[in-house]
């Protein structure tokens, strides 16, 4: 999220560029519709030499570990070799549009999902269209539709429609973490419905405990707000808000109802007003230290919480009664237009989506897009993954509140601070937010 927002920054620049998206995904006919079987997409007739793979994940990360599995399987199946070249995202972000115009480009590359990043490269004609591969390997049926949203970009680089330009192998979502001991010690039942959640939060307030760990100076407050908006919303709202498919009303409906609920939560003392100046790190550290019973934040916290919490038992649940939740696919694997071994690159991507690599992701809590939660041994990882599977199966990913228009992150942060500080009424704060949204949207769509 932090990176994402910084990113959405840089590049809406190229959205309006209408360079013909070239690269027609030539070939790809060798696949056998696998995707679930490691050797499936890349057997027999496809013989590969060396392919180059650029990525920027840490050595110990679940992503890197799963790609190592994919590399082994792919090399065994095709007789080729994968040369990994580690990059940094910052470097790639700055250089990609120059480097990818040359001849010395990787065959497969990790790149951030979203309009400002992969969308920009796609609209500049720097990425290969993957439609043929997606059909041949069956990615379009393996990947759930809300995961596919971030894989497809139109000619302006807007996600959600148009050809495939990348393939995500993992995902992320916003969930509810809680401190089981604090619930037990105060005799409060762990909620399963929204009403029970509010009752539990009330009970903590009555016991003199501020229940929600929050951070108003960075992304968490905006995500809590979005969860509450989504509580009142349906898929049509998300399509309108995120993909500009329909009008968005800032004076009534989900945005108004969610904002009013958030204001109510602040007024009832669920959130410490001091949160307006706190960072996400402050929030996480306070939750780990056992100062707050509940933290609503992303799956990217899970690894750290699971490793560092020792004084209490970590509980997790999907935000009660939300059929939509903030979250999205992870980063994409893309094939540059100037790549030489496109067919081999596509078969490697297919291997990264196959059981071996996906199960490695699952084991390490990396939220596979096509994995099997039954291989997981760690109880907490299992819950995290099962919740993820449930949300994805339900087409429940609603992306992030700051995604729609460039520069929206700062507006959402400021919006949350206004509510926390009581310096604006919910209606006034929404009005400010809405004005910015509509202007930004008109800028992108040219209406």
């Amino acid at each position: 999220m932090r990176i994402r927002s910084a990113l959405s920054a840089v590049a809406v620049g190229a959205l309006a560029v209408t360079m013909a998206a070239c690269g027609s995904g030539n070939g790809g006919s060798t696949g056998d519709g696998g995707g679930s079987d490691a050797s499936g997409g890349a057997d027999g007739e496809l013989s590969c030499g060396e392919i180059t793979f650029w990525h920027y994940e840490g050595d110990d990360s679940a992503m890197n570990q799963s790609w190592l599995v994919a590399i082994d399987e792919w090399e065994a199946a095709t007789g080729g070799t994968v040369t990994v070249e580690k990059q940094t995202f910052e470097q790639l972000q700055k250089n990609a549009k120059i480097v990818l115009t040359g001849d010395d480009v990787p065959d497969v590359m990790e790149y951030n999902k979203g309009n400002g990043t992969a969308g920009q490269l796609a609209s500049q004609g720097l990425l290969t269209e993957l439609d043929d591969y997606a059909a041949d390997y069956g990615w379009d049926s393996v990947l759930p539709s809300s995961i596919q949203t971030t894989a497809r970009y139109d000619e302006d680089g807007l996600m959600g429609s148009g050809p495939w330009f990348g393939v995500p192998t993992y995902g992320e979502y916003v969930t509810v973490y809680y401190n089981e001991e604090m619930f037990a010690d105060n005799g409060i039942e762990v909620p399963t419905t929204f009403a029970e959640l509010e009752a539990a939060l009330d009970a903590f307030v009555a016991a003199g405990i501020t229940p929600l760990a929050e951070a108003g100076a960075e992304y968490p407050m905006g995500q809590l707000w979005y969860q509450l908006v989504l509580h009142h919303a349906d898929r049509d709202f998300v399509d309108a808000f995120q993909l500009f498919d329909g009008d968005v009303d800032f004076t009534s409906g989900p945005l108004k109802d969610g904002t009013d609920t958030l204001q109510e939560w602040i007024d009832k003392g669920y959130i410490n007003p001091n949160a307006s100046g706190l960072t996400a790190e402050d929030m996480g550290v306070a939750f780990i230290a056992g100062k707050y019973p509940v933290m609503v934040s992303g799956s990217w916290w899970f690894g750290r919480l699971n490793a560092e919490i020792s004084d209490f038992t970590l509980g997790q649940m999907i935000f009660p009664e939300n059929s939509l939740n903030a979250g999205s696919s992870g980063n994409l694997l893309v094939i540059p237009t100037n790549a030489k071994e496109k067919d081999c690159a596509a078969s490697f991507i297919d291997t990264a989506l196959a059981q071996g690599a996906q199960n490695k992701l699952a084991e390490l809590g990396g939220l596979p897009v096509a994995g099997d939660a039954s291989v997981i041994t760690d109880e907490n990882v299992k819950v995290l993954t099962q919740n993820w599977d449930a949300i994805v199966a339900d087409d429940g990913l609603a992306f992030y509140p700051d995604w729609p228009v460039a520069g929206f992150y700062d507006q959402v942060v400021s919006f949350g601070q206004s509510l926390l500080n009581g310096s604006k009424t919910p209606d006034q704060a929404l009005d400010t937010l809405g004005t910015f949204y509509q202007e930004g949207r008109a800028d992108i769509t040219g209406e």
Partner: protein
Amino acid sequence: MSNDAPSIIDPTAAPAPSRGRAPTPGRRPSTRVYWLYLLPGGIALTVVIIVPFAMNLWYSLHKWKGGLAPMRWIGFDNYVDLMSDDAFWRSFQNSLWMIVAMVIVPTLVGIVLAAVLFDVVGKNIGTRTASFLRAVYYLPQILPIAVAGIVWNWIFNAETGALNEILRSLGVTDPPNWLGVPGLALPAVMIVLVWIQIGYPTVIFMSALQRVAPELYEAAEIDGAGWYRRFRAITIPQIRPETFVITLTCTIAALKVFAPIYVLTRGGPEGSTLVPSYYTFLNFFDKSKIGYGAAVATVLTFVIIVVAVVIQSLQARAERREEEGR
């Protein structure tokens, strides 16, 4: 952008009253050679300042999202929009507070500190102690701003920060939310800026005091002037050139301040600590409104040029008056 500051403020250049008079006729033929020496500087000036400035001006007349996106000529529309942009006006209003925190307070405190270190500590306790204390006051200037910003963030943290821990231990039940409330974040940032700035005038003023002829003080002392009278009548007028230099450099720094805002508040909460440079940055990189950001940068540049010219002419006038008085 305003790396040109040093040339304006070169302290050796300022008090040279005889410069610029008509050259003697005999020197005329050789002056042409001097132009060669100016060439490297001229090229650097063109490449580093004039060209980027012209490009910035050019961008500000367009609507442009950057990158390969098409540029659309819109004349002065960006500037017209600025006039009705609350955030723009707030950022310049905050610039005035930045001047208070980076120029006025540090200069006043610096002059007193320098005098105390030089006159009292230096003479009664020892010059070594004085130099040590001077170094300590200068330390925040050496610390990387990113490091200082993180430490101050810890200090100001409303929940776990050192400042509020101290306040709580003193019995304050509800200590302030320093960086989270619009009314407090600006003063908090100003405190950090004063802390950063104070060493600079102190060091300059101390070297200035060494330049002042000791006979003046001795004569005044014989005439029975106390420390304060000597400070008012001798010290302050004698170090006027340094005061102008500090005022000019610090005012420029205050107008274009960016890093402390970036590391402390990012212009928040609720835009209350927005400053022009950060607003430019936001437009350039966050909103991809290159033309609009360029317009803000252009206005900022002109404001800085005007302020610099005003301060310089005030200095020139003060010097002229001094010369006439003699």
